[in-house]
């Protein structure tokens, strides 16, 4: 054992928590090494002085009678007993506490459940033409849309200009009677 090992094991040595071989090795090192003897003695003395300081500082301090009464009054209202459900609840609570994944999985599940509500629009079947509604007429509009739209937008702090050469009409609604094309 070297001095570094000794210093590392010193707290356990002082607590008597080392195994028998470790305890023997530590004691042998301590008897041979003057430097570690000094360190050990210093630690022991320091620990004793800190304990004494704590004792002096807290001597005479006790739970006030009023505080004691408050505690007992609060606790005398109902004596808690272990219930059968406590075991199950505690088990669930332990899972909840220990597994950060539980939260993540629940979140994902909720996201999947509500995704349809949030993002998917309800798809409704096209209404069948009723007998009373006027028959639909198919109209062809031969109006070429020739335009150039100049757009500009900011992208990464730079102005980007673009010209859109053509426009496609995706959906249009017309009202009134369609007239046949003259040409």
């Amino acid at each position, binding site marked *: 054992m070297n001095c570094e090992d000794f210093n590392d094991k010193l707290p356990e040595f002082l607590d008597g928590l080392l195994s028998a071989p470790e305890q023997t090795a530590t004691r042998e090192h301590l008897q041979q090494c003057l430097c570690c003897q000094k360190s050990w003695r210093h630690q022991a003395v*320091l620990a004793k002085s800190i304990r004494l300081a704590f004792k002096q500082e807290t001597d005479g301090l006790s739970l006030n009678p009023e505080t004691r009464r408050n505690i007992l009054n609060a606790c005398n209202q109902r004596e808690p007993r272990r219930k059968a459900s406590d075991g199950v609840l505690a088990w669930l609570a332990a899972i909840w506490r220990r597994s950060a994944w539980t939260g993540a999985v629940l979140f994902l599940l909720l996201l999947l459940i509500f995704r349809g509500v949030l993002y998917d629009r309800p798809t409704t079947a096209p209404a069948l033409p009723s007998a009373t509604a006027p028959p639909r007429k198919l109209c062809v509009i031969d109006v070429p849309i020739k335009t150039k739209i100049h757009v500009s937008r900011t992208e990464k702090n730079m102005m980007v200009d673009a010209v859109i050469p053509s426009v496609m009409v995706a959906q249009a609604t017309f009202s009134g009677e369609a007239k046949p094309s003259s040409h």
Partner: protein
Amino acid sequence: MPESGNSGAPKARDSFDMQEFVALHGDRLVRSAYLLCGDRTEAQDLAQETLIQAFKSWSRYRADSALYTWVHGILLNLCRRYHRKQKRLIYDDELLRNESMATTAPQSADLDYCGRTLAQAIRELSLEHREAIVLRYFDNMKIHEIAHQLGVSEGTIKSRLHYAVRHLEDLLPRELNQFVSDGTDNNGLP
């Protein structure tokens, strides 16, 4: 050890006898609270809140540690909350100066003064270092118990204790030497 009063391995109990617990550990708990928060009045409040909270949430006690250790864990959480609140308060510099003068003025050069000075130095430690020192030297917990209680590794606890003790030595070399050399030194090897 904190198990004093709860001798032997911790056992699952069917009820929490608060009267018995207060009689056995009440004073110790309030002293520990005082060392952690540094205020006697606040220590009473913290101990009261700790015990009432422990009683209410007693069904969560799993008996994998001593009852006192579990209750002390609640106290640690409440002390941390107390310190967070204190940080938000605007502290009067003048008050701080007066307090420190009142507690550190050399009234006498005896052991009592050295003990008080050391206690004052301990109060000046950061909360993390103070927790480690109090659990180690007041509650007499072992390194692995402190690590379990604070939820950190044993190496971290050793490191915190090392720096806390070094800080105390830096603050109080002369007083500490006077304090510890008065018959408390132990020259005999184990």
